[in-house]
């Protein structure tokens, strides 16, 4: 299809979608209204299970099976990316020298912020059932924090601090823990992913039953998964070369 024909098809289709959107939006419940049926059901359910962060309760307790599905998408994408980006037959990996071309200040800030961001990431995961946060956000923060080492110009240091086999295992381990907690729910409470640990005090670190456990499992999986993905992209950019070139 030529570019013009493609644009024409899009304009016709897009105009139809826009018209349908307009009809639907004008008839939708108003923005900022005060009646929310799901909210009225979800909040008391979270309070019953002593979960102060209702969003975490929805994710890891009330709709935990849905999150398990999302997690499976995540691990499938990680595996797919790793498979697509592995060095091809005619490519080899080379060792690169430590090129210290970074500004001293950048390097210093990178090294100083590394432990800070790792601690923040852990805090976000561990308190995910009480304050805003959880495994998904904390995992991303941890993975980003680790790559401050790359920003500070030391790819070899990042490479040493990041045994990739361990991260591959960590990714699977996170998903397996999630499934194991679900199966324990069948064994002890009669249904998959049932919240069967004692709930504790509302707002305390030890509360919300299985929610913090699942948070840690997801945090591990997201952290390991994103580090593994970024490692593959970094390898493609830095270490993988076609044989015969250079």
């Amino acid at each position, binding site marked *: 299809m030529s570019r013009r024909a493609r644009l024409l098809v899009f304009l016709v289709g897009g105009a139809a979608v826009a018209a349908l959107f307009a009809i639907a939006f004008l008839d939708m419940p108003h*923005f*900022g209204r005060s009646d929310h049926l799901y909210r009225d059901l979800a909040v008391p359910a979270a309070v019953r299970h002593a979960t102060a*962060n209702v*969003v*975490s309760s929805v994710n890891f307790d009330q709709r935990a099976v849905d999150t398990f599905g999302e997690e499976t998408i995540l691990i499938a994408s990680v595996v797919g990316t790793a498979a697509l980006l592995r060095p091809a037959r005619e490519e080899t990996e080379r060792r690169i020298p430590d090129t210290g071309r970074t500004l001293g200040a950048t390097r210093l800030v990178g090294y100083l912020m590394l432990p800070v961001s790792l601690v923040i990431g852990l805090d*976000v995961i561990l308190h995910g059932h009480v304050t*805003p*946060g*959880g495994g*998904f*956000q904390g995992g*991303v*923060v941890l*993975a*980003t924090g680790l*790559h401050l080492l790359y920003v500070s110009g030391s790819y070899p240091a990042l490479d040493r601090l990041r045994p990739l086999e361990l991260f591959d295992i960590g990714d699977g381990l996170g998903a397996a823990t999630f499934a194991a907690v679900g199966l324990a729910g069948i064994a002890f409470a009669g249904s998959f992913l049932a919240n069967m640990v004692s709930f504790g005090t509302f707002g305390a670190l030890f509360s919300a039953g299985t929610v913090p456990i699942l948070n840690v499992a997801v945090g591990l999986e997201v952290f390991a998964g*994103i580090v593994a*993905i*970024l490692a593959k*992209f*970094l390898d*493609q*950019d830095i270490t993988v*070369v*076609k044989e*015969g*070139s250079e």
Partner: protein
Amino acid sequence: MTALLVLSLTLVGVAGTAVVATSRPERQVVTYSLFGLTLGVLFLALQAPDVALSQIAVGAAVMPMMILLTVRTMQKDLKQRREKDDS
């Protein structure tokens, strides 16, 4: 609807359009991370701190890094291909 919401919604719309209108991917990295930040601000204004945290970490850090690395790998590959064709 408060002024903050109107402003952040407008910014999201403008930034999203800017991302699409930027034709070179290496420049899209900049516009996309700005778009991620405006989305984060909007989510905060919509009383969704969990979502904002997730959006800022992904949209302003992980995604731009992946796009940048992809573009660099592609340029390297094209260069190697051209060198091979020349020889």
